[in-house]
């Protein structure tokens, strides 16, 4: 599947704490609710209600350790999803949020040096099957690491919750190994 849209490019480390700031860590986990203040700590520009969500970005492009700093809160993922983000491309991801992203079916796609070839506002096209990312604005092409089959399976089930619920209902939960 190909997805096209506008990207926001990070200029330094993007910390989980700044994606969802402290007052919202215990908010209900909800796409719309969490999107209202998502990225508020990342830049002054986004530090207002729907400051990031209203920008119409489809992709985030970042360097190393995206969503690092070690928070387990899932609002980071639901907030980005609620704001319309369809995938995040980065050199590397912090593992806690990488895990959460898989569990919610938001693709965190590893792609070396992509931040060096994109500017905020560029139009990107991502082919989720081949992992090819095209920057339609400047013509650059990147080869990302394709999604693992397990990641696709969870995403297609609509996230880990649905994946597990279905198996409990079917009586096939003990088959997991």
């Amino acid at each position, binding site marked *: 599947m190909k997805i096209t849209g506008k990207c926001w490019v990070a200029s330094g*480390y993007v*910390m989980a*704490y700044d994606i969802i*700031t*402290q007052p919202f*860590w*215990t908010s209900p*986990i909800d796409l719309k609710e969490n999107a209202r203040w998502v990225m508020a*700590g990342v830049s002054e520009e986004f530090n207002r209600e729907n400051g990031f969500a209203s920008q119409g970005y489809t992709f985030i492009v970042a360097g*190393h*350790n995206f969503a*690092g*700093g*070690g*928070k*387990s*809160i*899932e609002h980071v993922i639901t907030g980005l999803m609620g704001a319309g983000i369809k995938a995040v491309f980065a*050199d*590397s*991801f*912090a*593992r*806690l949020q*990488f*895990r*959460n992203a898989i*569990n*919610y079916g938001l693709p965190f796609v590893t792609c070396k040096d992509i931040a060096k070839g994109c500017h905020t506002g560029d139009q990107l096209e991502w082919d989720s099957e081949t992992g090819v990312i095209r920057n339609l604005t400047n013509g650059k092409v990147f080869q990302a690491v394709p999604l*693992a089959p*397990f990641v696709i399976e969870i995403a297609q089930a609509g*996230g*880990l*919750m649905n994946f*597990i*619920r279905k198996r*409990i*209902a079917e009586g096939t*939960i003990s088959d*997991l*190994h």
Partner: protein
Amino acid sequence: MPGMTITEKIIARNSGRKRVTPGELVWANVHTVMTMDYLGAQTFAKLHELGVREVFDRRRVICVSDHLVPPPNEKFATMLNEWRRLVREHHIVHFYDLGNQGIAHQIMVEKGHVLPGTISIGTDSHANTYGAVGALGNAVGVTDAAVAMAIGKCWLRVPESVQFIVRGEWHPYVMAKDLSLYVMGMMRWNGHLIYKAIEYTGEGIARLDMAGRMTLCNMTVDLGAKNGIIAPDNVTRKYLRGRTTERYVALQSDPDANYEQVYELDLNKIGPMVARPHRLDDVVPIEEVEGIPFNKAFVGTCTNGRVEDLAIMARILKGKRIHPDVNMLVVPASQSVYLEAMKKGYLATLVEAGAAIDTPSCAACAGIHTGVAGDGDVILSAGNRNMQGRMGSKKAEIYLSSPAVVAASALYGKITDPRRLSLS
């Protein structure tokens, strides 16, 4: 076929496999699942969303009140009431609430809820601490925790292992925290340790007590690693005696196990280290920051709130007074730590030196409880993170160091190398 690392063996053993290889995805059995007051209600809500009303094993879901106790405001008090209701509703056997509380990771290890050769997960990022006893400790979100509470399993990607062989002698007043910070400064957040299993080994580790091992494994999450682990030895066996009656398997890495990288570190070259404000990977030897003034000192947290940490502080502060411009807050990591430090006289020494002692909790570490930072504060902390706003105000600066550095520095109101003190 090459041998396996301890992390690979633990995952293989707990997923019914003879062997696993890095990159493989497995569903593994968990020994215990920890959740705490702050995210516990979310975790139980997810469990209910799965349509499950009973946890897989009431003895293996460990509930701890640590972020919110005692409640400083109505919001926290109400959250705690809901949390207690949910814990009771599920007939959880091991509930460590106010009066019996401690920081969850301290409780998990101290009370024998993590065992060598097993997997334990928790909804707080410093669950990596459990590697100190040779367990695979892993931090997860509330969804993963809820799934594990329902079915006793979680999915894991087998990580590549990276070995740090630690040789040489520990300098006096150099602690496991300094080694953690040294590795942080050496590796930075460049992606090299992300998802990795970090295995600490060598004679420097063999000589380290359990408190130091917990510090070291605790901060592997801040290096970006999946887990940090130290293979069980006599220190481990001695520590676990009296804490558990369960049998465990002291798995070890094979001599021909495969490591993605092996780093050798020489303790003779490692002195006290300090992480400078706003970036945890901006670590320098103490010489580069000596003399910087600060107004708040903080020792506690799952990283450095143990008896051994308070002992070294008491040694440094005995018979002295901390600088009048410094507010020092000390928060033992658990009620057991509190009691032991009290009986040994460490708390009396610290109070006589002018430190304030607070009830065991996560305190100001995450900026939500006692001792938060205000505008203009410069804090020297023995905690684990120093991002802008971490302890409260975004207009505060946090330096991170060992408890020994905090204690020595508190005497002068400026960052001071504890090795300079002439100790009688």
